[in-house]
């Protein structure tokens, strides 16, 4: 099975990629600004909602229930979609999904060069559909403004909802000037957006095949729902003759009524709006309105691997709102590219390793301080910090069964475990540390610590271990403490004169 999550398998580790990203001050400035803006907008919109927590609870319950019965809801969706004139296909992995799409396109357009218009779907990035289409002589045109910017720049998306957030207006202007042949373009966002509108209009009106994704697939009715802002989604799902929708199997919801929960949570979480400009909901094929041929490709690509363990399954509740990215203090400093996957930020740190397999993306579960800001904002209550710890546990267990058991980290952890399981060893370790630090002590500070600890002293000062530990003090003052406190003793921080 060739499960692929974009270029995750070949990406450098997070600490390496992050270090490079940190040097890019333009990127960091853009990311700070963008995440601050959306975070503040989201906070405003959430404050308005007295039943926000109840909505989150309902959404989490619906998703958890659906995943526990995913097989029957997928079958129900397939039946209802088919009955309404849609055609449902199943793809085990990235290659199969792409092969199905190519076969469907060829079946319609014959063997010559073909074109398709695409509306934003991270799932197609996940399977690297554009590359597969191009290799088969089919040209895909991205129509989401940000995806278009990314495609033109031969770049990678850096955020789930605003994929070009790492680009500022001047960078976009330069791209458009070159790729659209518009040397006179200014960097005013209104002008840039208008240029995109004109550029894409012709494509929307003339390209016969559209490819998109779905935010939700309703089992009860066989309907598919696309949530968007720009209108290119409406264009792509309405105007072409043939529509192919690629959707991860976890996007199913049981009933039409369930949308009342998600359509309140998603826009406020994703873009800080009460409602996004357009939601499109359609079932199969409708005579005289929209595509006359409609295909759905249901995608596995590693999702079923995550179904057995309850904590891993919780990851699949994600509705791709991106709120966790905007809340994450780590993402705020590095941006999305550092995660080496189209799914970046906190959700990326748990989803990419699980889809792709832990042997790739090993560093991602550690790309977090476990601060919990993501969990606080997740509309479907995915306990991301808990899942990160779970994945770290899996990695360590795997490492310990291999030669990686000999790393300095594991040996240090084993030594610490030994020390912590006996008072005698613990106190000996304290004494040892106090003695050993002399090698690195300058006055009251420790400098240039070796090995991994050097990561600390590279950026931060560190006070030396005090001569007297707390338990030394406790032992010294005797078993019975004074009953009156006429004097109290305090130690202050440092000794700076």
């Amino acid at each position: 099975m060739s499960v692929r999550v974009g270029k995750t398998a070949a990406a450098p580790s997070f600490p390496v990629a992050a270090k490079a990203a940190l040097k890019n001050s333009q990127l960091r400035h853009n990311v700070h600004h963008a995440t601050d803006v959306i975070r503040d907008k989201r906070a405003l919109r959430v404050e308005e909602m007295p039943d926000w927590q109840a909505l989150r609870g309902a959404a989490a319950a619906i998703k958890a229930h659906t995943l526990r019965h995913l097989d029957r809801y997928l079958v129900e969706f397939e039946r209802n979609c088919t009955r309404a004139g849609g055609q449902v296909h199943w793809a085990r992995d990235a290659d199969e999904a792409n092969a199905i799409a190519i076969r469907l396109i060829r079946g319609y357009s014959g063997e010559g060069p073909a074109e398709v218009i695409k509306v934003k779907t991270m799932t197609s990035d996940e399977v690297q559909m554009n590359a597969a289409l191009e290799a088969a002589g089919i040209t895909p045109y991205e129509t989401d403004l940000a995806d278009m910017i990314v495609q033109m720049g031969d770049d990678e998306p850096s955020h789930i909802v605003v994929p070009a957030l790492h680009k500022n207006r001047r960078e976009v202007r330069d791209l458009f000037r070159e790729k659209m042949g518009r040397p006179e373009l200014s960097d005013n966002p209104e002008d840039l957006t208008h240029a995109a509108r004109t550029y894409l209009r012709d494509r929307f009106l003339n390209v016969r095949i559209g490819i998109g994704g779905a935010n939700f697939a309703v089992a009860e009715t066989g309907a598919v729902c696309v949530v968007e802002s720009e209108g290119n989604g409406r264009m792509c799902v309405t105007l072409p003759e043939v529509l192919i929708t690629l959707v991860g199997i976890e996007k199913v919801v049981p009933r039409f009524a369930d949308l009342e929960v998600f359509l309140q949570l998603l826009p406020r979480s994703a873009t800080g709006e009460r409602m996004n400009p357009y939601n499109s909901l359609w079932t199969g094929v409708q005579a005289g309105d929209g595509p006359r041929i409609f295909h759905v490709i249901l995608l596995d690509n590693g999702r079923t691997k995550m179904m057995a363990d309850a904590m891993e399954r919780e990851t699949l509740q994600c509705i791709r709102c991106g709120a966790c990215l905007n809340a994450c203090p780590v993402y705020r400093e590095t941006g999305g590219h550092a995660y080496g996957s189209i799914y970046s930020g906190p959700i990326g740190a748990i989803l990419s390793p699980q889809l792709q397999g832990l042997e790739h993306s090993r560093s991602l579960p550690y790309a977090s301080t476990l601060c919990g800001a993501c969990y606080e904002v997740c509309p479907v209550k995915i306990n991301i910090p808990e899942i990160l710890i779970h994945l770290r546990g899996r990695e360590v267990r795997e490492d310990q069964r291999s030669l990686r058991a000999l790393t300095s980290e594991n040996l240090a952890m084993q030594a610490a475990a030994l020390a912590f399981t006996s008072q005698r060893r613990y106190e000996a370790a304290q004494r040892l540390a106090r003695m050993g630090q002399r090698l690195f002590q300058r006055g009251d500070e420790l400098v240039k610590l070796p090995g991994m600890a050097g990561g600390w002293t590279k950026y931060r000062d560190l006070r030396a271990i005090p001569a007297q530990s707390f338990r030394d003090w406790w032992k010294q003052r005797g078993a019975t403490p004074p009953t009156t406190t006429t004097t109290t003793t305090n130690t202050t921080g440092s000794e700076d004169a």
Partner: protein
Amino acid sequence: MPRRYCICRPTACRPTIKRSPALRIALFVACYNDTLFPATGIAVTRVLERLGHRVDFPLQQTCCGQMHYNTGYHREAVPLVRRFVEQFAEAEAVCVPSASCVAMMREHYAMIAEAEQDAALAAQVHALLPRVFEFSELLANRLGVEDCGAAFAHSVTYHPSCHSLRMLHVGEAPVKLLRAVRGLTLLELPEKEQCCGFGGTFAVKNADVSAAMLEAKDTCVLRTGAEVVTALDNSCLMQIYGGLHRAGSAIRTMHLAEILACAAAPAEALR
């Protein structure tokens, strides 16, 4: 250079401390406080004794297991859970001056017992945890105290650590305790809910990002103009100090307990 100690004279006025019935409070000081920040444990002892309670310190205590557990060494944490639960089983109340340790216990101890399929351990955990308190929780919720009779005439800014904020939900308790300190000027920390970047082993495994997050935090601290930064966790304070001191700042870091332990004429409190 020898540490300088501040000898605080008793206050002239009677401190208005609300007395709750005297308790025997077992102190779980936390391994890193024991070794690196003994002043915090000392301060906790002073404050609790001043309030009329008795403090015990079971010497066999070592570590709550968080460092191992959070880094993925789950098996290694199990004996540490057992030790804690056994050593503190009989305590009337347990005081832990480390929000991250209490979070570890509340979030994971029951899960660990379940994963071990050890019903007895799980029962012990469930019986003990309601009696375990982070330091500010103990004062506010268990002892019913807001005014500890403290005096500290300096400007202070409070950094809410992620564990205390999002996992323990300590809420306003630390701020109320600080507001009751005579002479203390409390200055609001901008963007206070942003993580300082410590994150346990994250600080060294992702040192570059940790430092970048710290820079953002320290910039906010400096903007307050405060003389002192305080928090419920010395791990955060170690991180914040590390960056401030490297940048040449003279801002002090003090655990909340150390501020509350000051019951003196303000001028001598901080030399």
